[in-house]
């Protein structure tokens, strides 16, 4: 029995492609997302909005809405505590309902709660709102213009010298002396690059439910950070943490858009007011008005010696964030801090601003502020390569930081053999090889810092029969965290994978985890689970010593086995004997920390880096401007692939997501700041038909990461350099440089036919070629 058991246990340990835990439920529709949960007598909530970006709200009349049968409450700002409760992960600036003035198209001014979704929807339509549209700013230029209307009242920003501007914060980083270095450069390449406003487009709708729970409150949310939400809610409703229970069922895709509280406070106030559970499920259109990525304009000035050696970089980035900070300013800070990329550059100056606007609050999105900068810096590298007449691959390799190099002063040094990823990508796409006429190739790299602080706890119970329960506060939103933790526990405790249960998503049961973001969970929670397994192993060791009448130090427990001298026993055998007649279980606890550093500009150094090199080949239809990606190669440095198929799924998923903002995705606004392409009809994400004709992903694994068995975080890297790689390939195929995303057929066509249109992109291309 036990030997067979041991063989099974080894089958899906770390490094093996274990089948996805919960995967079958996901793909067969059996998994219950928040919107699927039984909701009993819950009231259904519908948001009331006005068809304007910025509007002064004069009167909200719920008389007709209240007359709709089944309506329980028309909640207006007057029904909430005064002053209006505000919340937010960086600043407490977002009101539960708009106060006096809407700040963006889609901001709710009131909400209706009714017995049925139809009654709520009908009543929401009947709430009469008198409002007057006000001038709004929804571009960087307009927001920064002299005399621009202020998005946030200065009273919300006491003591802030920028309070009378639309700049929420300005970040300055750098080293060396850019001015002095300017004289040492043989060539200076300059350009301004624009990155569009895009949305996360998780397939699971954002859903929220709150219910009175004894003397506390229970919240259900498709959220990445249940413990952070717990703190926010405890503050807002003035309860101790122990009386706020957050249930976070596995989200169906999140991509950063589900990190922080959005409408949980609203449903909580409705639940407390009515004494009934209250639920809100956003439509896709409402989701567009709830979460998005920050748009950006990035000016890059880079100096090179004629041999291609980088001398300096001068980067100025303006990010168009929304009306409230959410976590947007952190994305600006973090995305800009590493915006010089994985290069060795003696002098660097980085200025980045978070610019408030009357648009949907931007938040975290896979890549966290980095794709905008990488689009600019890597496109600039490609232009430099062309002007210097150096192969773009060669130019990267020449300037890439080597392992251990302090490429950013006082920061975690280069933690991988990055050139290996670049060389592998070049090899896979046959970089120097012949290409078909009409096709072009491009290559780019992306670097992102991992978490700067972190804290994860895990409890692992080895039950009396050798099966295992793992408690981990990570949210498995599709990245496969359950599978990784189950693999670690199965391998360390000698249980078959299907004997491991991973419990997540309940703050009353599962110990604290700081958050599920920055591709941290395999590293931080993975280490916590591993530590908890080690704790169990040490108790098994003591148990074995007692059973054998030997000292502890003659016994070793590792990877599911107990070694006593020459003898090797499965853990389970020792466990069953050791527990004896009363049975019971062995409980282990583990903790993993990434300590803060208060003097660091980001509050802490990077736990690891995500590094990726992407190389693509494209074909451009000159008549229509249509870009077909014929080949897409993506190589990530992951330290150790704990589950190779999941790693591949994450890399390829990230790459495809990157093709969205590269080729087709962008919010389009009308002249008053309303979103014109709200919803799936006119906002396009890639479908299977839009995928590269051929896609290959590979990894570099040197077991040099801080996670279990040498793993690094991964999942975002393969998105980072997609846009600059594709644009470089378009340039290679056509000779045209385009500095605005997305590369829609029409934009490419305009660039290709300057005689027809005099398109601005073409003027830029000529500048770039000088």
């Amino acid at each position, binding site marked *: 029995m036990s030997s067979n058991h041991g063989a099974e246990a080894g089958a899906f340990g770390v490094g093996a492609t274990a089948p996805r835990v919960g995967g079958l439920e996901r793909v067969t529709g059996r998994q219950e997302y928040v919107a699927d949960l039984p909701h009993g007598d819950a009231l259904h909530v519908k948001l009331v909005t006005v068809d304007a970006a910025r509007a002064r709200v004069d009167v909200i009349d719920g008389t007709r809405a209240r007359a709709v049968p089944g309506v329980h409450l028309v909640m207006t700002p007057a029904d909430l505590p005064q002053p209006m409760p505000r919340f937010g992960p960086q600043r407490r600036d977002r009101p539960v309902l708009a106060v006096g003035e809407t700040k963006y198209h889609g901001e709710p001014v009131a909400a209706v709660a009714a017995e049925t979704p139809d009654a709520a929807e009908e009543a929401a339509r009947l709430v009469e709102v008198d409002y007057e549209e006000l001038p709004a700013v929804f571009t960087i230029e307009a927001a920064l213009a002299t005399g621009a209307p202020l998005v946030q009242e200065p009273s919300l920003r006491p003591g802030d010298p920028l309070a009378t501007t639309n700049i929420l914060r300005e970040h300055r980083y750098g080293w060396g002396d850019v001015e002095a270095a300017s004289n040492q450069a043989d060539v200076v390449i300059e350009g301004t690059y624009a990155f569009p406003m895009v949305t996360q487009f998780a397939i699971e709708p954002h859903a929220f439910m709150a219910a009175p729970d004894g003397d506390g409150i229970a919240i259900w949310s498709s959220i990445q950070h249940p413990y952070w939400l717990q703190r926010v809610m405890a503050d807002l409703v003035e309860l101790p943490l122990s009386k706020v229970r957050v249930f976070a069922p596995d989200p169906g895709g999140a991509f950063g858009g589900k990190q922080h509280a959005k409408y949980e406070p609203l449903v909580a106030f409705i639940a407390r007011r009515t004494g009934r559970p209250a639920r809100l499920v956003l439509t896709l259109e409402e989701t567009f008005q709830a979460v998005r990525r920050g748009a950006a304009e990035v000016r890059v000035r880079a100096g090179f010696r004629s041999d291609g050696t980088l001398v300096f970089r001068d980067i100025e980035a303006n990010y168009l964030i929304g009306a409230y900070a959410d976590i947007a300013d952190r994305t600006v800070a973090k995305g800009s801090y590493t915006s010089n990329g994985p290069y060795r550059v003696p002098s660097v100056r980085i200025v980045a601003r978070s610019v408030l606007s009357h648009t949907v609050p931007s938040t975290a999105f896979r890549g966290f502020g980095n794709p905008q900068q990488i689009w600019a810096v890597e496109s600039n590298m490609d232009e430099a390569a062309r002007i210097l007449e150096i192969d773009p691959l060669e130019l990267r390799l020449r300037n890439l930081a080597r392992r251990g190099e302090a490429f950013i002063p006082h920061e975690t040094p280069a933690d991988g053999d990055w050139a290996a990823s670049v060389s592998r990508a070049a090899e896979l796409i046959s970089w120097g090889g012949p290409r078909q006429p009409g096709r072009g190739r491009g290559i780019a790299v992306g670097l992102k810092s991992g978490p700067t602080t972190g804290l994860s706890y895990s409890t692992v119970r080895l039950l009396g029969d050798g099966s295992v329960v793992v408690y981990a506060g990570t949210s498995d939103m599709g990245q496969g965290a359950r599978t990784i933790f189950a693999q670690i526990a199965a391998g360390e405790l000698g249980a078959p994978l299907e004997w491991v249960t991973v419990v997540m998503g309940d703050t009353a049961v599962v110990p604290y985890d700081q958050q599920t973001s920055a591709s941290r969970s395999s590293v931080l929670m993975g280490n916590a689970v591993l530590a908890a397994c080690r704790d169990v192993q040490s108790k098994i060791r003591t148990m074995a010593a007692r059973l054998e009448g030997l000292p502890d130090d003659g016994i070793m427990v590792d990877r599911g086995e107990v070694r006593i001298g020459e003898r090797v026993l499965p853990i389970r055998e020792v466990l069953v004997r050791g527990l004896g007649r009363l049975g019971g279980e062995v409980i282990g606890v583990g903790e993993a920390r990434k300590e803060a550093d208060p003097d660091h500009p980001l509050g802490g150094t990077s736990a690891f880096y995500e590094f990726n090199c992407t190389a693509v080949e494209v074909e451009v239809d000159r008549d229509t401007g249509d870009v077909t990606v014929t080949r897409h190669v993506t190589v990530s440095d992951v330290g150790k692939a704990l589950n190779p198929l999941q790693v591949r799924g994450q890399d390829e998923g990230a790459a495809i997501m990157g093709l969205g903002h590269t080729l087709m995705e962008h919010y389009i606004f009308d002249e008053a700041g309303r979103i014109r392409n709200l919803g799936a*009809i006119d906002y396009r994400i890639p479908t299977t038909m839009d995928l590269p004709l051929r896609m290959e992903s590979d990894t570099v694994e040197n077991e040099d990461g801080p996670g279990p068995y040498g793993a690094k975080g991964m999942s975002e890297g393969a998105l980072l350099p997609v846009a600059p790689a594709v644009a470089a390939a378009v340039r290679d195929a056509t000779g045209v440089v385009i500095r605005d995303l997305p590369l829609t057929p029409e934009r490419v066509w305009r660039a290709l036919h300057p005689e027809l249109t005099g398109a601005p992109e073409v003027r830029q291309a000529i500048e770039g070629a000088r």
Partner: protein
Amino acid sequence: MPIQPPVESPRDLGEAYALLAATHHRPIAGGTDVMVQITGEIGQLPDRLLDVWHLEGLRGITVSEGALTIGALTTYTAMRHSAPCREHAPALVEAAATIGAAQIQNRGTIGGNIANASPAGDTLPVLLAMDAEIVAGSLRGERIVAAADFWTGYRRTALAPDELVLRVRLPIAPDREVRFRKIGTRRAQAISKVVMALSWHLRDGRPEWRDVRVALGSVAERPIRVVATEALLEGAAPTAETAARAAEAVAGEIKPIDDVRSTADYRRAVTARVLQRMIREAGGW
């Protein structure tokens, strides 16, 4: 409540005609347009719906009397799988294959595409290029409307309020060639930016084209034929010079608009290039 308009589900055509004659109903078949309008709150909500999905007599594909006849309730999937459609109307099958995803093709019908009268309706230029006849019916009997006369304005048709689209007849002409091309916002499940169908006859083994049709979607308020361009191509052989002249002619003849999907400039230029390319491919040069 207007969110859920009342729905009638007639069991036979007579009952459907009577309901239509009594009061205005919006017919709904596969619902791939109507449901988007309802749930997406696009345009006016219909007051009442007439669910025609169960009128079995409106399904089916037949070949008789020199024509391919396709019942209004025939889905895009059924057309794609139909041997007669593939033989006699391959361009229509090609157009059907570009519409939506498999789920949409399983529900969406040719009758719905015709009656919905979207300027971006993907099969409609093919019907125009093939000289299709649309058969409409009501309590007053059946009548035939030429495709060229069917779409009268933005989402307007020649149908009377009490009429239903029953079927579409496509004359079978062995010497006719039909080509289709769609430019969308992406490769699948996309609303067209430009859709084009081109047809011509070859007579007596001569290279000159006869009975040329050039039909376009998404460049006007309705699917159109560009008759001046057709006249220019009539009797011409598909040479480089013809293609260049036709491209210039079509660019001058259409008056597309700017919208969220594209600009008029782009639509005009791309239409011209697509036509030029289709003629080049036909000419084999």
